[in-house]
């Protein structure tokens, strides 16, 4: 019974009248308030998220072809004796060799003789003797300095595609803010 009377009251059109009011001129100001607010929330503007950067026409079609062409191009093989660390090691080994033989023989007395040795002779010597560059470096006084230099060379070399090691694990350098 009680429910029925409630129901009837809700059907009274007056019940739908808005009992709330706003300060005078509120809606005129509201427009400006919204605009100001949107100015404050500048970053929320959808237009700002639009991509303003463009590319030349047909760029993506040609770009993928360029990448594939580079991948399919024959790999540039760098001979071992062209590697900077190997040249250092070879030079150091040659100096040691000259020093050792210089002590024993009178034939090699001048350091200029070093200049007459070809890369091939030095490489052959290193391969025959199975001397590692680290062994050689460990045996001389400024080995540490040369090792540092070799390390720097290798680090620089990694920046160029020709020297990239394909097996290299990709290290991410993201460290700080």
């Amino acid at each position, binding site marked *: 019974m009680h429910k029925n009377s409630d129901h009837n009251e809700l059907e009274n059109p007056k019940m739908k009248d808005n009992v709330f009011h706003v300060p005078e001129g509120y809606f005129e100001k509201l427009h400006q308030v919204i605009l100001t607010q949107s100015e404050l929330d*500048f*970053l929320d503007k959808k237009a700002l998220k639009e991509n303003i950067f463009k590319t030349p026409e047909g760029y993506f079609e040609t770009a993928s072809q360029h990448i594939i062409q580079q991948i399919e191009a024959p790999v540039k093989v760098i001979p071992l004796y062209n590697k900077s660390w190997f040249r250092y090691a070879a030079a150091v080994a040659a100096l040691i060799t000259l020093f050792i033989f210089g002590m024993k023989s009178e034939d090699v007395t001048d350091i200029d003789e070093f200049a007459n040795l070809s890369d091939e002779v030095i490489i052959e010597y290193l391969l025959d003797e199975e001397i590692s560059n680290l062994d050689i470096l460990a045996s001389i006084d400024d080995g540490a300095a040369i090792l540092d230099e070799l390390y720097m060379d290798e680090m620089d070399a990694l920046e160029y595609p020709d020297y990239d090691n394909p097996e290299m694990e990709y290290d991410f350098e*993201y460290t700080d803010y």
Partner: protein
Amino acid sequence: MEDKDILVQFGNINTRNSAFSELVKKYQERIYWQVRRIVIDHEDADDVVQEIFIKIYKNLENFREASQLFTWMYRIATNESLTFIKKKQRHHMQSIDDIQYDLVDKIQNGPYIDGDEIQKRLQEALLTLPDKQRLVFNMKYFENLKYDQIAEITGTSVGALKASYHLAVKKIENLLKQH
């Protein structure tokens, strides 16, 4: 083609190059836009994107599927973009201010940029952020990536990213209000 199919085909020497071609076609645009927003200039972005895909090609065999393929590629792209900026600064002996000045000039007058004044102002304001913060802002604001995705890409905690993004937003809003 699904990523897993691309990876299977890449593992087969006979289908490797065609699988890689699919990979490039599938992802090059997303990678390009990510790079472009960092390096700004189209020619620079083009160089960096090529370098990124060559690195991806050389390292894809080592990809152990511990993360999504795209996340892994994004990580490489992110790192290469930051490395490019550092290298450019070093090679041209430029200060950060010089580089910023060049980039602002490119935003205002460079080719292949077509935005209204307010959009360009935002890009200029972004250049005042540290590169890594700008990167996080781009991933969150423009690319709508989730924090956990960005955390995986950058190897940073979600908390640190939220703090970084919040700071970036505050800085940008302040800068834009000053104009």
